[in-house]
Every structure is written in C-alpha cells, then in structure tokens.
C-alpha cells in the first residue's frame, strides 16, 4: 500500500508492518507461507525472544479466490461446486450450508430421504476430515507414523464417499432441494461393514497415540482458551467445545434428522490443546453412532424434490442465513437475493477464519513448539480461511 510511509526497506509489507511494534532484541521469524507446520500457504509472523513467542500475527490471502464475488456472478446452482472447494476437508458441510440457505430463502421442502442422505454423507465426511486433522496434527508434534494409519482409514471412507458423491475430495453432490444421487445398496452394505471396523480402530488410536506420555505432555495445558476468549473471537466447533462451550449447530439449530437420533455433543472443559484433541476423537465416535442410526432409519422416497430449480431459476427476494456444524466449526452462509438468478450478496462465514483470529492471543508467551502445536490443534484448512 504505502511502502514509503513506513520508512523501512527490508521485508515485504506485512513484515514491515509487524516490525513497527517489535522490540530491539528479538528475532522476527516468518513461519510460512511455505512451512511444514502450516499445512498449506498460511503465513505466521512471530516475534521470538529465544524460543519464546512474544507476538504472532497470521498473514492471510495466499489462497484467496474471492468465492463471495463468484457467488454474485454465477447462478445459484452454478455456485454449488464452488462450495465444495472452500474447505477441501469438509466439503459436504459447505455444500449443505449453501443449498440450505437457498432452500430456506425459497421455502423449499427437502424430501426426507434426501435429508437422511445428507446427514449420512456429511457425517462420513466429518470423520474423514477429523482423520486428516489427526494425522497432520500428530505430524506437527513430530510423530510421523499416525498419519499413515489415519490415511488408511480415510482412504476406505473416501472410497465409500465416492459412491454417492462421485468425488473423493471436493464433493459437490448436494442440490437445491435434495441430493444428486440416491444411495446404492453397495454403499449401504459397505458402510455397515465399515462402522464396526472403525470402532475397533479408535481404541487402537487411543492406546497408541492419545495415551502416549510425550503427546500428553506436549498438549496438556498448552494454548488454553477460556469460554470468554472463544466468545470474543467467535470461536466455534471442536475448539469452543474443548473450552466447555456445549455449542453444536446440529443441536442448537434443531436440525431435523439429528433431533431424532441418539448422540451426544462432545464437550471438554479444560480448554487446552488436549481437550480439543479429545473432543475431535469423541466426535468421530459420535459420527459413527449417527451414521449407524441414520442408515437404520433410512426412509424410501425421492432424493430430489419435484420441480427442483434449474440453472436459470430465479430465487425470491429476501435474505436467509443457514448455518451447519462443519468439522471445524460453524459454517454459515448469508444469502441476499434481489429476485434474480444470481445472488445479490453471498457471505460465507468460515469457522477457521474466526478460530485462527484467536491464535495470536493463544500463542502469546508460549514456546515455539507450543505455538506450532496450538496452530495444529485449531485444525486449519487454509483455503477456507482465505475463501
């Protein structure tokens, strides 16, 4: 912007901006944009006093694609593939948030079977997302092996998820008014076989990794966020639930299918990295419960409503906000329409964006290795932060 006004010549704009508040005897270190701990192109500038982090400032925008603008120049149904690419970890959560916002705006009734399919696939997607996080997070802590085990399970799940959605990563199978394909018999059978297998794997993960003394010493008491801090920064999802806030959109906003199923919101009160870790591990178990019950209760019927909108369908005037519990927190889509085939305004509320904004405060005063552990415990997906 105004390079000259800052009066410094080295480093880029953000470095110079950061250095203005730095002490004389400290070292400014750029973690990223290419750094193994950031799992993508996030950049965190840290001010180090020896190994201690005095200040940290995330620098965003390396993966910015301006999805909100694309939402205004594509018709509503054309925008669905975009939503799958915002968060590659939990693509179906974003799918659901967007089509949900459109359905709410238009007042559409989604067929019951489609709702069940959405629940099942979203929950499978949530497990794959948590497995991805688990592997990457243990990698941050220096344990190289768990990611291989996590990906073993994740590959099976992606194979399964490929059947109804047609893709392995950037799913975009939800449609306005339903889903694009019905569940096949083979899918249902494979999932039924997989659930007990996964239930055996989770205790093994606990024994091998979670109960490891080094891992516990690395995570317990590290990066404590209290409930008030979560509120000030708008932190949601497993991070907030690790701080004792029993807030889950699936329960809070009375999602129709989830209401009838037997599952619990995983909550821990410690607020440290270990609590966030355990919340996600518990959530995988809860997701298995949800999938199992939803499969058992799967009703027959159509998967897409009659007269589902075509490409050039015009949404009614008005606004709607639809939130979904994503793997990383509250995914929100705020849609404003002026009655055209394009949205007048699409606001994408990304959970990682808010969760990461709390990072600077959580990392202050920690040792560098802890700062990396905290960054990992937030479960960041960089494309979702930058959108």
């Amino acid at each position, binding site marked *: 912007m105004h390079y000259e006004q800052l009066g410094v010549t080295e480093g880029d704009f953000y470095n110079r901006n950061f250095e203005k508040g730095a002490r004389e005897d400290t070292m400014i270190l750029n973690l990223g944009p290419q750094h193994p701990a950031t799992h993508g192109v996030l950049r965190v500038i840290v001010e180090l006093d020896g190994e201690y982090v005095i200040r940290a400032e995330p620098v965003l925008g390396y993966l910015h694609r301006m999805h909100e603008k694309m939402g205004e120049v594509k018709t509503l149904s054309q925008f669905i593939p975009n939503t799958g690419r915002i968060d590659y970890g939990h693509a179906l959560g974003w799918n659901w948030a967007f089509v949900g916002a459109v359905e709410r705006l238009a007042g559409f009734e989604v067929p019951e079977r489609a709702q069940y399919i959405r629940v099942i696939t979203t929950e499978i997607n949530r497990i794959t997302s948590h497995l991805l996080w688990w592997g990457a997070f243990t990698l941050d802590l220096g344990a190289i092996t768990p990611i291989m085990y996590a990906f073993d399970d994740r590959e099976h799940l992606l194979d399964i998820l490929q059947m109804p959605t047609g893709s392995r990563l950037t799913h975009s199978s939800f449609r306005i008014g339903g889903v694009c394909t019905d569940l096949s018999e083979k899918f249902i059978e494979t999932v039924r076989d997989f659930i007990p297998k996964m239930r055996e794997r989770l205790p093994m993960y606990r024994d091998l990794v979670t109960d490891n003394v080094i891992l516990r010493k690395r995570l317990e008491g590290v990066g404590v966020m209290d409930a008030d801090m979560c509120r000030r920064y708008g932190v949601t999802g497993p991070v907030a639930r690790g701080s004792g806030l029993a807030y889950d959109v699936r329960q809070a906003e009375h999602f129709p299918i989830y209401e009838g199923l037997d599952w619990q919101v995983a909550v821990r009160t410690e607020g440290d990295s270990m609590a966030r870790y355990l919340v996600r591990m518990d959530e995988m178990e809860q997701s298995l419960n949800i999938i199992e019950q939803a499969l058992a209760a799967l009703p027959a019927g159509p998967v897409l409503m009659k007269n589902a909108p075509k490409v050039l369908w015009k949404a009614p005037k008005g*606004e709607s*906000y639809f939130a979904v519990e994503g793997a990383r927190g509250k995914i929100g889509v705020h849609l404003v329409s002026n009655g055209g085939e394009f949205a007048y305004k699409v*606001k994408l*509320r990304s959970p990682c964006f*808010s969760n990461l904004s709390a990072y600077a405060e959580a990392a202050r005063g920690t040792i560098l290795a802890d700062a990396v552990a905290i960054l990992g415990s937030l479960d960041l997906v960089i494309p979702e932060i*930058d*959108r």
Partner: protein
Amino acid sequence: MIDSLFGTIKVQYLVKCDPAKTGLAWSVFLAQSDLLPAVKLLYRANYFLEDLTAIDAKEGYLAVYHFDHIDSPGRVALRVLTSHEAPELPSIASVYQGAEWHERETTDFYGITFTGNPNPVPLLLAPDMTEHPLQKTEAQRAFLWDLFPPAEPLRAAADFTLLTPAAKLAETGEA
C-alpha cells in the same frame, strides 16, 4: 429478548424474525452512534460474533453484524448504514477482538473504513490493491426495501424510511 436488552438504545427498526424462514431471530437497524453501545450490551449478554459483512445497496453500504448465543441460540443481525461517498463505521474490535479481521476483510472488499481498528492493513487482498471487488456499479445496486421483505416491526423510529418502498413513500408523502 433483544427488544428488552436494547431498551436503553434508540433503535431505528427492530423486527422479530422467524428463524425457520430466514435463519435470523432478530433484525435490528441502528444508527452509527448506537452500534458500539449495542455491541457492548450483546457482549455482556454472552453473545458471540459470528460474522460481519456489508451489502452494497442504492442507499449506501449496509454493514451487517451477526451475533449468536451459546446457551439460547437465536441469531441477531445488527445493521448499520454508511454512505457510498465516505464509508466509515466505528470499529467494534475493542469489544469483540475477533471483529478485527472481519472488519479488515470488509475494508478489503468494500472500502469501508473502520475507525479504531487496531491493525487496519489489508487482510485477504494484496496490500497495493486499490480496487474493492464487491462494490457494485450504480446499475447493479438495488434498493434496501427491495432486498428485505416487509415485516411488522416491534419498534421503529418515526423517521426510519429505509425499508419503505419508494412508491409507497411517495404516496404517503403526497397524503
């Protein structure tokens, strides 16, 4: 709930919405000077900031703040209007630190200045970029009364005409 919480604040327009139809529980229009007191009240009532964005309309930029509550969920939308010529709003980052990034993002996208933001540098866009991608041209802009469906407000200031259609306004003006 919100109408009693905002009892001390001179809201311009307050409407209770149906969460099943819009996803909002409350929609509140505020004057710029009332934004910070209202946000402080929400903070004391344990609300958390969901997001912050703006809508580019004919009347100006309508900044929208979404809040939600952990224990008794119900989304509150605060809306504050600022002009196209000198878009400026007070920053709420002193109350909700998380708003800092949302405000910087809104500055990037719309060019709205948030006075009091602790670190007002570009967040998502390049530092030397001068365009604001979500700004609309005059032809693309719609009227606010066109975007927001008419509702029965619980409270409304007498001079609040943002959501009254122009035709109706002209009618009553004539009358």
